[in-house]
């Protein structure tokens, strides 16, 4: 399958079930809401080392937030519900509670409950105030700046983590340009996050290592400097590869984001130095979710880019 001179390889991204939740963070200005969102989702690129994967999902206009102030929605995913229950209050307490002017609300109503103020209310040392009206409880915590307002808890969803695709380009600059375009397009899709820096991974990994105790190591088949040294997946003209990793609240959301991202890369096309689109998998035996690139692109490819 060729789209605008870019080969869509006949492969699939292999993804895993994750448990996720959404928080709505508001603040006096969009900038402070974003600062809180970015801080809360910092050091959350991969569950392997960070305990969770998180990022800002989207900005929310003041008219749509619970308290009428500008806000952001963030998504946080963990491998199981127990881990999610641990990481969310921890990040809430360290990054949102501490951030000037913020308030934090549930972004998902359904599913198992993830504690928010239910856990961190004790920071107020007995001066916390609870309000429960119509089955929804929120807390007010006196802080030096004024009051921190936070919902009791939030819901959760069984989502998908580790959706991905690889951009194979002639040069590093061309790979980066295409990755940036993909990220920009994908952030319009609701219900997904791209947890890596700027949404892009430059050091995709394979399972295992020659070193004991390391269970992931550099994906040598896609390292251009190892072409010929190791069995390579890269044709001679490829000089750089970047990966986009996607976590989402549903298979459909991740699938749509994959399509939108690949479309954006293909719009740049072979003329922009893009050689192929590939995806990372483990042979299909580890993750239950398979995002078949050609199926996804066949289903909704922009005819103009073909």
């Amino acid at each position: 399958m060729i789209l605008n001179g870019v080969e869509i390889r006949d492969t699939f991204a292999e993804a895993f079930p994750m448990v996720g939740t959404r928080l709505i963070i508001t603040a006096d200005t969009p900038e402070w809401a974003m600062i809180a969102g970015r801080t809360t989702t910092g050091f959350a690129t991969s569950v392997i080392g960070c305990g969770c994967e998180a990022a800002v999902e989207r900005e929310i206009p003041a008219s749509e937030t619970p308290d009428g102030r500008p806000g952001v929605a963030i998504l946080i995913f963990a491998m199981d519900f127990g881990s999610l229950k641990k990481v969310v209050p921890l990040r809430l307490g360290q990054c949102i509670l501490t951030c000037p002017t913020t308030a934090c609300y549930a972004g998902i109503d359904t599913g198992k409950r993830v504690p928010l103020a239910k856990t961190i209310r004790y920071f107020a040392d007995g001066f916390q105030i609870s309000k429960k009206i119509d089955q929804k409880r929120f807390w007010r915590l006196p802080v030096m700046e004024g009051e921190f307002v936070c919902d009791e808890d939030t819901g959760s969803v069984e989502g998908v983590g580790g959706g991905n695709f690889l951009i194979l380009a002639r040069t590093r600059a061309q790979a980066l340009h295409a990755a940036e375009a993909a990220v920009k397009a994908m952030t319009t899709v609701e219900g997904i996050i791209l947890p890596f820096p700027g949404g892009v991974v430059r050091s995709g990994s394979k399972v295992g290592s020659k070193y004991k105790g390391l269970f992931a190591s550099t994906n040598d088949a896609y390292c251009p400097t190892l072409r010929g040294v190791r069995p390579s997946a890269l044709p001679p003209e490829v000089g750089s590869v970047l990966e986009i990793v996607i976590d989402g609240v549903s298979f459909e959301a991740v699938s749509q984001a994959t399509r939108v991202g690949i479309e954006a890369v293909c719009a740049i096309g072979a003329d922009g130095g893009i050689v192929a689109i590939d995806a990372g998998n483990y042979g299909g035996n580890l993750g239950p979710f398979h995002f078949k690139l050609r199926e996804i692109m066949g289903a909704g490819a922009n005819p103009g880019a073909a």
Partner: protein
Amino acid sequence: MSGAVLKPRAALEARVDLSSVTPGTFAGLSLREIEQMMLPCGGRAVPLAELFFVERGPEGSLVIEIGDPRLDHVGAKMDGGELLVDGPVGAWAGHGMSGGTLRIAGGTGDFLGAELSGGRIKVAGRAGARLGAASSGSRRGMSGGVIRITGSAGPRAAERQRGGLIVIEGDAGEGLATEMIAGTVCVLGAIGPLMGRGMKRGTVLTRTVPELPAGFVDTGTQELIALQLMARRVPDLSGFLDKATRARRLVGDVLLGGQGEVLVPE
């Protein structure tokens, strides 16, 4: 659940306990069974049909036409459906109610919504004493749900209230929120003297600072994000709070270690 309409045959000569008359207790009953239901009336029990004409009404709803201040316990222990009274009722309306909607198109007696735990009571008129309060001998008043009255409330409204929301569009009598444990009261009119004595927690929203006992301290005017959150989340408060972001906050009853608050939005 099939509905019913009750029409009083004549003005009541004695107080009638309607606690067994709710949309829930009528569910599955035939018209005849409803008519034969025994109601405490004065010192005796009489069949419902002796006091009311009964007709079939809309599914899940119960309508009491005309109303009467001698009808006590209207909607008491109700747990769902809709009960409409087309006039005044007596004491204990909505007592211990846990769900559904009770609408009263007239005034009510004492203990309206006492120990309410859920559902919604709307009264187009005034309420007697101890609105949403604890019943005699009980330690805790209303714990959930919403009571909204368009008129004024008698003394000791929200006494020992521990949850839920009361909106009084008129004035509140003396002793409002006495020993209040938690919950929210919003008074659009004036508040009588001696409010908040022994208040432990909970919030009283009002337009002007009321006369407060010595145990209340003024923390000054505060910027409170919770005001706009409540204005948006709670339709019953959106009109009162409007665009308010600041409120004067008075805390009490600190003489008894309480942390209740009176908020006066600016």
